[in-house]
């Protein structure tokens, strides 16, 4: 079972996980983010700031096998750059804990984000930027009816791969 819940800026386990994910080079490279080493306090501030930003919806991805099982915090999903005029938003998503791969966690999380939070915010168009080499993400977004709107040649330099990668712009309309 997947729940999208607010990330608590008072929960040290959650903050520590975010701290680790934000400095994880492989994870960051996948989502085209610069890895950063944050202190505990800086991570807390980051969560607080982004949770209260009216231009985004930041949620933690929580998983449990069965109803009474302990809940595991394993990723972050959000609507970013919400444009209330054009009713558009960018989707950001990562699963930091890869031990539960294959359970369609990303797909269920994205589905909930669309059905609950995008609807609640009256979003009509969702869009995302994905590295062309990130097959898992591309497959995930395509499975939820995102289609390609753009192909940005050599748009991301991977320090890990030491090469330029193309970036695909995906989008889907709600209605």
């Amino acid at each position: 079972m997947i729940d999208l819940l607010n990330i608590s800026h008072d929960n040290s386990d959650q903050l520590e996980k975010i701290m680790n994910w934000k400095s994880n080079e492989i994870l960051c490279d996948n989502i085209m983010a610069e890895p950063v080493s944050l202190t505990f306090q800086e991570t807390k501030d980051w969560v607080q700031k982004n949770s209260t930003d009216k231009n985004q919806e930041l949620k933690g991805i929580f998983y449990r096998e069965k109803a009474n099982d302990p809940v595991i915090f394993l990723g972050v999903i959000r609507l970013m750059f919400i444009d209330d005029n054009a009713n558009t938003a960018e989707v950001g998503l990562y699963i930091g804990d890869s031990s539960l791969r294959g359970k369609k966690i990303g797909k269920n999380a994205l589905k909930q984000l669309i059905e609950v939070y995008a609807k609640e915010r009256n979003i009509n168009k969702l869009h995302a930027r994905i590295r062309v080499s990130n097959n898992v993400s591309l497959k995930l977004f395509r499975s939820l009816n995102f289609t390609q709107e753009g192909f940005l040649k050599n748009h991301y330099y991977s320090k890990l791969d030491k090469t330029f990668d193309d970036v695909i712009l995906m989008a889907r309309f709600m209605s």
Partner: protein
Amino acid sequence: MSFYKVLNKQVFSSGEYSIVPVRMADRYVIMQWRNEQIDILRQKEHLTKEKQDLYFKTVITKLFVKKNPEQLIFSFLHKGKLVGYGGLVHIDWNSKHAEISFLLSSNLNYKEYYLNSFKEFLKMIVNVAENASLFKVYTFGYDIMDYRFRPLYSNGFHLEAYLHEHVLLNSEKKAVRIYSKLLNND
């Protein structure tokens, strides 16, 4: 004249046009153009002289001395007279690309003048990007007047993305086009 530490050349010319690192003295005229053309800019509120002073003091002046500035902004001159401004913004020094921004004086922003001046501006700003060792430049344009994209094609840009219903302009949803050009820096 101010100069950008990151560039080894400061003034770029093409025919009767030139660009120079943005001049402090031009800040209020730029503010006026931005306010007059707010509909087509990603600017939410009108600028005031105080805000513009603060922006130049806290953001622009610092760009000149940075090793990796986030923007390289220029005053755009025709026969030595200020007719617009623009530059490279959102510079990504890791991926070595930047977005081109361009704004003409409100009273010169008509078709014939736009076509010629933007064409020349693009030549110069591509030279700036090459001077800064960038690999790619791109620009966003609202899909409103087809002729506005012509100078991009004639300067070797091509369409990379067409974002449907992406912005709201005058109560109508419009598409956004992204054009880009890969540069020859190695």
